[in-house]
């Protein structure tokens, strides 16, 4: 009897409407009530990532361990001495620069009249100054991004890569120590020309002994993710070159 009723068009229609309303409100309610916690977690994550790039983390052998969330806000304000926003020739200080949405800025910048806001974080550790820049690009399936810490000569001091949906075990390995640590010491420039760093196949220097060749070893089975990393370093870090030039002339 029940089966007969459920075949009617009107029943199907009403069922669909009610289901959409019920599921929709459950999802909206969950999202709304958890929103605050989630944004807070995302804020902590950004701070953790930035600190990680400049080598402030709880890493042990081969592990990737961030500063714990209950301490990260304090440690962030202790080590990150300045947060800058670069907009053309204008450089301003902004304590909330780390919350700038790089993805949104990239999108807005497609409109030529918009001058993209580029966040840059200056950190100090043991007397050394780190310049940390956030970059963002495309992997195989979705977004990939990174925080790259450099010295004033644009030599990489540390990097943290992350991704939204790269293939586990392959492209997702850009988030592993063996890949990220390869970048340390690599140069962005070659003979005074900005070259970026290429994620190169060919296994010619797997131990990564040569630091001035603008190359790191690629991950097998992750060609497109690797190319994405190369592309985002070239396109996004290039934008910061003028700022680094002013550092040197001072």
């Amino acid at each position, binding site marked *: 009897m*029940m*089966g007969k009723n*459920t*075949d009617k068009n009107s*029943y*199907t229609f009403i*069922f*669909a409407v009610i*289901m*959409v309303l019920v*599921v929709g409100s*459950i*999802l909206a309610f*969950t*999202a709304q009530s*958890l929103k605050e*916690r*989630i944004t807070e*977690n995302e804020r*902590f*994550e950004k701070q953790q990532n930035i600190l990680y790039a400049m080598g402030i983390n709880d890493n042990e052998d*081969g592990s990737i361990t961030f500063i714990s*969330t209950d301490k990260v806000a304090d440690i962030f304000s202790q080590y990150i001495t300045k947060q800058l926003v670069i907009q053309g020739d204008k450089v301003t200080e902004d304590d909330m620069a780390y919350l700038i949405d790089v993805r949104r800025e990239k999108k807005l910048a497609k409109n030529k009249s918009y001058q993209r806001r580029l966040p840059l974080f200056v950190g100090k550790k043991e007397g050394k100054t780190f310049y940390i820049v956030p970059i963002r690009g495309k992997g195989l399936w979705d977004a990939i991004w990174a925080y790259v810490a450099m010295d004033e000569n644009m030599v990489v001091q540390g990097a943290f890569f992350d991704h*939204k*949906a*790269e*293939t*586990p*075990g*392959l492209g*997702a390995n850009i988030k592993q120590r063996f890949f990220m640590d390869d970048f340390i010491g690599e140069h962005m420039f070659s003979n005074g020309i900005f070259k970026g760093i290429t994620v190169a196949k060919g296994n010619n220097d*797997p*131990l990564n002994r040569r630091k001035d060749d603008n190359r790191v070893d690629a991950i*097998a*089975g992750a060609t497109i993710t690797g190319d994405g990393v190369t592309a985002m370093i070239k396109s996004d870090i290039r934008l910061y070159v003028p700022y680094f030039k002013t550092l040197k002339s001072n």
Partner: protein
Amino acid sequence: MALLSKKDTKLILDPLSDDNPITIQVLGICSALAITAELEASIVMAISVMFVLGLGNVVISLLRNIIPSKIRIIVQLIVVAALVIIVDLILKAFAYELSKTLSVFVGLIITNCIIMGRFEAFALANRPWRSFLDGIGNAAGYGLILIIVGFFRELLGSGSLLGFKVLGDPISKTGLYAFGYENNGFMLLSPMALIIVGLIIWVQRSKNKALIEEE
């Protein structure tokens, strides 16, 4: 009284061997190829699917008498998508690190054909408790194959298991690598997953002739 009757036990044990979703029903192949390059990813996926399939089967089974048959596939999709999104949101709020690890799997879980397959084939016609057991059983059968494939792909492809370099270090040539052993990079690519699944099917059928179809 036993917790599980004989019939119930069968629901859990059958999908592990003679009615395995991957090797017999040939469902869920896509994710079996996609994420088995490492053992850890296989285990995470197996647990996630078990959770979603167990819960989803119960929800569908509870709704089985009121779901209009014309739009049942859409209803199933909405149930699984909503479940996955809610779990994802809760993890993001309370276990952020874990949610980062799982985020990659969310899309793969929603589109996993085993989930839709069990909703359609079992939960729509059975009581919640039996549907729950069926979900757990099928997810376990699926997970078992994933773990076997992941084990061989990581071991032969990267020379490690769960990230531990069990065969020595391929770059500084220690352990097996000192004798000229090399990792098989082909293992990391999806075609090898298909070949391993094929080998498992071969072994399984040669051990149990009843599984071989009559000409």
